């Protein structure tokens, strides 16, 4: 995998939000690569910059956000330099995104079939005659039972899991090469969550898509991702294969995050929360934004800039004093 070039290549990306109460440094020096055929998880607490990274990659960053440094290349396309017309074609055909709370992402007053049809129509993948047929075909790929009848259903008539399937159908209608799933199963039942994640995994494998899974659930990332990127307060702190990361986390934050996640059996004493909260991203920040919560913090952490160390092949950690 690593000998080909990555489909999504984010290099040294920094993003700031200008707000009334100051400049929020939401992302700083974020680099990540996603290759075809792999599922990459981005994990971290809320506010760690997971979604901002994804939105920037899709070219749909909020107008208050400004990219101050870095580059994003998606299949050779310079996302930050491209015009809106190019990006509109890119979104859907090359990259697609699904969001959390599918019910609010769908238009409540149009049938789901028509909404999927809009995507096909916009990208000239279907004409009037075969639109319905193509939409039903895409409903079938996301395993919606009785697709012919569901074409005419409104979002409120469908369950949450079913709505998320519609979102996936919509995202994949034009066979993109990259799928970004932002917390796709938040608010769904555990059985539905498993079914949706199985579906995303199977479709990515079938289509050899690059898939980015944004989640705060480490256990879920471990189950479905080939590689995991851990973010904290706008920094990438660690990245590596799921196996490496779970068997030997090297960044103190990753280790703490794992310790805070309840997993099957065990004892309540075995889990520990992470003290403190995310630092205020508006002020002057230390080179390592985890230093305020870190037990291994020493003088060197405040004096030297963050460096990415390759602790084992393809396992990177941004820490002065890794575990």
């Amino acid at each position, binding site marked *: 995998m690593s000998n080909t070039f990555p489909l999504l290549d984010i290099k040294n990306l920094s993003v700031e939000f200008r707000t009334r109460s100051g400049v929020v440094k939401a992302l700083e020096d974020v680099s990540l690569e996603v290759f075809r055929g792999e599922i990459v998880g981005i994990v971290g607490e809320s506010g760690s910059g997971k979604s901002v990274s994804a939105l920037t990659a899709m070219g749909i960053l909020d107008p208050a956000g400004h990219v101050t440094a870095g580059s994003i290349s998606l299949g050779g396309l310079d996302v930050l330099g491209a015009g809106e017309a190019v990006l509109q074609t890119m979104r859907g055909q090359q990259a697609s995104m699904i969001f959390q709370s599918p019910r609010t992402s769908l238009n409540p007053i149009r049938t789901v079939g028509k909404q999927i049809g809009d995507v096909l129509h916009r990208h000239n993948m279907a004409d009037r005659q075969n639109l319905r047929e193509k939409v039903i075909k895409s409903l079938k790929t996301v395993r919606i039972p009785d697709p012919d009848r569901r074409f005419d259903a409104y979002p409120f008539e469908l369950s949450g899991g079913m709505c998320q399937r519609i979102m996936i159908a919509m995202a994949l209608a034009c066979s993109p090469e990259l799928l970004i799933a932002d917390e796709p199963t938040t608010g769904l039942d555990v*059985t539905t969550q498993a079914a949706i994640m199985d579906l995303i995994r199977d479709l990515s494998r079938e289509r050899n898509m690059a898939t980015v899974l944004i989640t705060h659930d480490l256990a879920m990332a471990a189950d479905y991702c080939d590689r995991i990127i851990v973010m904290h307060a706008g920094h990438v702190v660690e990245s590596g294969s799921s196996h490496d990361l779970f068997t030997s986390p090297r960044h103190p934050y990753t280790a703490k995050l794992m310790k*805070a996640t309840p997993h*099957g059996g065990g004892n309540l004493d075995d889990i520990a929360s992470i003290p403190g909260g995310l630092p205020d991203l508006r002020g002057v920040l230390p080179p390592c934004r985890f230093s305020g919560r870190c037990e291994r913090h020493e003088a060197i952490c405040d004096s030297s800039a963050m460096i990415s160390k390759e602790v084992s092949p393809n396992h990177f950690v941004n820490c002065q004093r890794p575990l």
Partner: protein
Amino acid sequence: MSALLEVFDLKKYYTLGGKGLSDGSLVSWIRNRFTNAPKDTQVLHAVDGVNFVISKGESLGLVGESGCGKSTLVGMLARLSDSTSGSIKFAGKDIGSVRAKQFHAEPERSELQIVFQDPHESLNPRFTAFDTIAEPLRRLAGLSSKAELRARVEAVATQVDLPLQLLGRFPHQLSGGQKARVNIARAIALSPKLLILDEPTSALDVSVQAVILKLLVRLKQELGMSYLFVSHDLNVVRLLCDRVIVMYLGQIVEEGPAEDIFTKPLHPYTRALTSAIPGHNKEDASAFRLEGDPLSPVDPNPNACRFYGRCPNGSELCIKAAPPKFSSSSDHYAVCHFPVQPH
């Protein structure tokens, strides 16, 4: 252990096609939502004959997917809504016969409290943390002297590790973890005997979840409370609960000690549920995935298993006769014709 809460054959039915919605639109809604809705839609069986007991000092977990009747059941137990039939006994007294609207006048109101889901939504945005915690003390304990009230609120805040300087703040000035503490403080202010916790940690970041869970365990010991713990997060239920009941479409399908439910599930639905927990996902877990949607809770066939159609063990018998109770031990049972055979 003596029983604190005894629930016997509790039912909640809703008739459909009332005011506001024309019959036709509701029927079509239900048809789309559930695969097998019958033609003459009449009665929705939200909770359908539920029996269980919570002992003193015990924590009982309640799990099941959305729409299975968890919240309806919780509403009835907390005496916020009336049941259709059945009885609820609390410390020996039948509280199910008291109308929900009158329940606030009963002495049991202060002994049976609930922590609502999502502290961001359930705290009154115009109440400071102090007001929120003081409200039950004012209304139910009749504390009126300012000094007494302040002393009691501060004692409760200390109990939940809420810094006293935060008491003057409004919900929007508090973090998620702090709001969760206020929410818990309000519920324990009257030292209840039974605390119903409806998804207490689902809105919290994983980094603060652990402290809140530990707080709940500590409070339970300090105050000698019993818990009814409703949660989607099965890993959390496993950590906190002594026993677990599993609901499916208004009925209890399995009940047993927490460890047994997770390691030796009897009901095929419980197996599907536990094998879907993230982190347990081995490749063979996908064999237990559920297909399709649940059956309709509207006029269900009384002589059929409600899990039929999604159940890998299902056979013709399951739609001919209601499933019997199968016990693997004195405290572990499932309602199923073909329970999972332990390996």
